[in-house]
């Protein structure tokens, strides 16, 4: 067989293999970079300065003195493989033989404001590990 035939067969096999796979990602809002956070000045910046730098928060909570602004960034990845897909070549009905796994994380940024309305401190609550694509659920 010629080179072109090999190429065509390879592409069809890749397409069939790929058709049994599924890569999905869900991203909620954009992450805030650490350089942006370093621009904040404790005891000086007011609410408007914070908002100009970081945007409006997702949540505001009360503290004993002042308040806390909370920003959230979510990322989740799901991968699924249907091992039954390959049987569509031989069988009229495609059996469902899925293995899949999803991982999701949320990054939370806390901005604490003093009772006089000035910026006090920030804290980034990062998840232990970033999400990854992997199909093995066990």
């Amino acid at each position: 067989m010629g080179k072109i035939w090999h190429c065509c067969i390879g592409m069809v096999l890749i397409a069939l293999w790929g058709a049994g796979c599924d890569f999905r990602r869900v991203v909620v809002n954009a992450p805030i970079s650490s350089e942006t956070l370093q621009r904040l000045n404790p005891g000086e910046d007011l609410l408007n300065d914070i908002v100009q730098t970081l945007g409006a928060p997702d949540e505001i909570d009360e503290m004993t003195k002042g308040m806390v602004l909370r920003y959230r960034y979510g990322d989740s990845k799901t991968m699924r493989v249907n091992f039954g897909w390959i049987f569509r070549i031989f069988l009229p009905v495609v059996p469902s033989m899925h293995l899949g796994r999803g991982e999701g994380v949320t990054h939370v940024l806390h901005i604490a404001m003093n009772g006089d309305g000035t910026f006090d401190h920030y804290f980034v609550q990062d998840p232990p590990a970033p999400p990854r694509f992997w199909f093995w659920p066990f």
Partner: protein
Amino acid sequence: MKNNNLAFLISYAVRGSALVRWIGVLGIAGLLMGCAFVRGEVGEPFSEERIKALEKGKTTRQEVALHFGAPDEVVEANGYDIFHYRRFDSKLGWVLFFSRFNVGSDNLWVFFNSQGIVQEVVFGNRTGNLEFQVWPFGE
């Protein structure tokens, strides 16, 4: 003669240009899975005019509720009553076996003093830069 013509057609299909081959591959792939672009919105967009209409030290709580409706949430913090309005926008791109679903939120916070007059307005637009993306890897 007929055999010669058939051989020519087959050889043309197999040896066709790169474009023809790619169209064939895309056709096969398209038949296998397909693609989708979907958008979902929750809440009405906050127009600039409506936000500019909120005047600090003048606009009352009732006027804010009249312009923006009932708030999604009312928070009490640092001596202020705060009305919170949210809007969500989402864009899903799905081609063959790759998909990415981007969600963005706009938040409007209106701070009132003890007299129920607007003291501060905080607005952030994160849906303006939201894109349709398909590739799930990387950033």
